[in-house]
């Protein structure tokens, strides 16, 4: 599936939730299910520091695709991180760098991407794109 196809599928999934409780319970569930990042990457080097919750992000390049693993110390942030990984991981660097993550807004989670940087999510999206670009460049050289 393309990045946009995954986004559209998520938008459909979230349309089933008729109140915020159900939506957040689902996000919390995603957070609990997100495979933990390999312990060796859970250190400052891989840390994206938000004002309140922390996000660890690691990227790998395999067969022309970028693979992300991530973690957070806050469970809602972790659920949102899981969504980002679901959408962006396994695509080419070019696709990731050029992606428009419209699903966040459409599923009503825009406030989590506000520039208050409370949760480090906005910084994470930027970092994912930067990783993709960097890995892409490295593979060309």
């Amino acid at each position: 599936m393309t990045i946009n196809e995954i986004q559209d599928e998520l938008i459909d999934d979230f349309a089933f939730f008729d109140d915020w409780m159900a939506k957040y319970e689902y996000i919390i569930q995603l957070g609990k299910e997100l495979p933990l990042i390999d312990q060796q990457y859970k250190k400052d080097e891989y840390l994206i520091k938000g004002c309140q919750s922390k996000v660890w992000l690691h990227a790998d390049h395999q067969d022309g695709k970028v693979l992300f693993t991530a973690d957070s110390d806050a469970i809602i942030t972790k659920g949102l991180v899981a969504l980002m990984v679901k959408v962006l991981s396994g695509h080419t660097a070019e696709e990731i760098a050029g992606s428009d993550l419209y699903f966040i807004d459409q599923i009503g989670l825009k406030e989590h991407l506000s520039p208050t940087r409370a949760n480090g999510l906005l910084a994470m999206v930027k970092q994912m794109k930067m990783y993709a670009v960097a890995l892409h460049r490295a593979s060309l050289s």
Partner: protein
Amino acid sequence: MERTAVLEQFDVMRVRKDFPILTRTVNGKPLVYLDNGATTQKPQQVIDAIVNYYTQMNSNVHRGVHHLSQLATDAFEVTRHKLQPFIHAAHEHEIILTKGTTESINLVANCYGKAFVHAGDEIIISAMEHHSNIVPWQIMCEERGALLKVVPINDAGELDMDAYRSMLSDRTRLVAMTYVSNALGTINPVNEIIALAHAAGAPVLLDAAQAVQHLTIDVQALDVDFLAFSGHKMYGPTGVGVLYGKEKWLNAMPPYQSGGEMIKEVTFAKTTYNELPFKFEAGTPNIEAGICLAHAIDYLMDIGLDNIARYEHELLDYATQRLLRIPGLRIIGTAKEKSSVVSFLLEGAHPYDVGVILDKLGIAVRTGHHCTQPLMDRYGIPGTVRASIALYNTREDIDALVAGVERAASMLI
């Protein structure tokens, strides 16, 4: 006094009618505003004054001879005039209007530092300071070759007064402490802090940003040298704050925002400046906020800070008792003397997650480190959830908070 007696004496439902924002909903729920430590809501009296300023007198102050400028200047000076009895200052010209607490502290760090702090001198702060009462001193100490000393706290969040006593010496140039901790609610023993500092020959700055809206302050009785606070945390507009300074210090300090480079090359004794308070008020101030702060002062004085303190204290006790009944909830900051802040952690839940769920329920709290990272490090925690109480909060607000935290616990843990 019996709890019911206090609550009856203070008519919170009448007070709430003065704050139009309290009738709105958030996420479809009635707003429960418990982030008053960050900023308070504004009464209609202050909102009306802002509209009145722009519709009737907008003009620059201290400049023009025309009618509007005179009106604006008079109104601006009314605020200073009202601030004097509000904090019981000896002179009106000891009151400098600034942008807020942060600027007030920066002003002292900068100007007092230039005049009085030299290599090898020491500045004393505490472990519970807000970043705005840490960083200006760090920068000043670095520039002046001085040493910053930090008074530790105990687990309850109270100052270690023995450590403080032992840190004071003839090298101490200034003690800068918070009156009330924004993250813990601790009311510091300011009388003792000041008396001990003075005995060592050092002046004291109190960060009163979290005190002035909750307690009656008498700068002369305290004998405090500098006092800093913000308008927006005391039901007034954003963008105005106060620096009170004893005349003798303010006169001995160079100006803040004019030619710092030049001042270095002249000796202090030979330099003369504008008279107080204008020496420290360079440029066009926030006129609207300056004028409208007077209405917030009137508002507080009409209700009476003693009544406010009693009411808020009852509510704080109620909140503390109710929150402590939630399994796994731990209150951070359990000082004997506290003011209207409950900081807490829910075991197994990140404060951010709790804050997100509470927001969905229309409850505004602050989560995170509250600009007190060293303090959070002291407790070894990433932050807390902080509910901070104001005069318009009710028991129903507390009940909503407790129910919200219970809901968050059921979802997160």
